[in-house]
């Protein structure tokens, strides 16, 4: 198969079928924390896309060309966290300069991208599964865009939930969790669409 098509299919696969939030429960903290407004969830999603894609691009060569030749592949988690933390700092500086209002609305969740397990999960998963660079890149892009898609869709639903008549016991977070569960079930319907893409 054409390499470009399989690249796009790999992105779609990790974006929709293996969506990290709904099928592996990575990154639930910002998913629930920053999804109250559409605008801030969009900002959060874009920040996470930036961090995950760059972390993938940096961590894969770091593992294969530095840590493995030096005989210290066991240091991978520490090295990845180092890279991710600095990337998050960079994103923070960038947002503070160009969008102070977004910086305010993201608040504590911005530095917490460092501890968003989706980021480390992608970087670690890529090297643990022994993927090549192109597959890793596809996985990174797909996962992060999947996160962006889900958090924006979820925040759109939550905005509507605010104004709808919800039983008192379910107001706020409980109904949001139920909605997330229904979304996870809906996305399970995409399972088996296509699988086993080799790059």
């Amino acid at each position: 198969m054409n390499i470009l098509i399989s690249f796009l299919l790999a992105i779609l696969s990790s974006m929709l079928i293996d969506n990290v939030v709904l099928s592996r429960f990575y990154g639930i903290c910002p998913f629930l924390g920053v999804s109250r407004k559409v605008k801030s969830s969009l900002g959060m999603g874009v920040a996470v896309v930036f961090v995950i894609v760059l972390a993938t691009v940096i961590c894969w060569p770091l593992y294969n060309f530095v840590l493995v030749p030096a005989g210290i592949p066991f240091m991978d988690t520490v090295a990845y966290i180092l890279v991710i933390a600095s990337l998050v700092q960079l994103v923070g500086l960038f947002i503070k300069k160009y969008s102070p209002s977004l910086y305010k609305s993201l608040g504590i969740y911005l530095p917490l991208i460092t501890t968003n397990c989706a980021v480390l999960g992608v970087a670690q998963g890529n090297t643990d599964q022994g993927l090549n660079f192109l597959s890793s890149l596809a996985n990174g892009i797909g996962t992060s865009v999947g996160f962006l898609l889900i958090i924006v869709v979820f925040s759109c639903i939550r905005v509507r939930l605010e104004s709808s008549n919800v039983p008192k016991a379910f107001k706020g977070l409980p109904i949001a969790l139920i909605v997330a569960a229904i979304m996870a079930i809906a996305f399970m319907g995409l399972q088996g669409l296509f699988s086993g893409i080799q790059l």
Partner: protein
Amino acid sequence: MEILWAVLILLGIGLLLGLGLAIAAKVLHVKEDERIDEVAKRLPNYNCGSCGYAGCKGLAEAIVTGKEENLRKCKPGKEDANFKPIIEYLDQHPNEDGTKVKVHL
């Protein structure tokens, strides 16, 4: 030997990333009113949030930009230790157009 390499390589990575961040911080520097930091220094810095702002820095910003005039909003602040030094500092450092920042107890 492995441990030595691990330490050295991580040190190298850290150094490189730190350098990159230092450059980025210079390039993406946001010019802030220096009086905000000075006022924040004179607040109790418990970051308790009982003033209704996000931490002491938030209140300091509101005071300097004129959004907040009542220093008593800061619940844990003491008159002698916090409020008087702030009033004195803002008295000596007026706005650029010469008007004074309005604060009271």
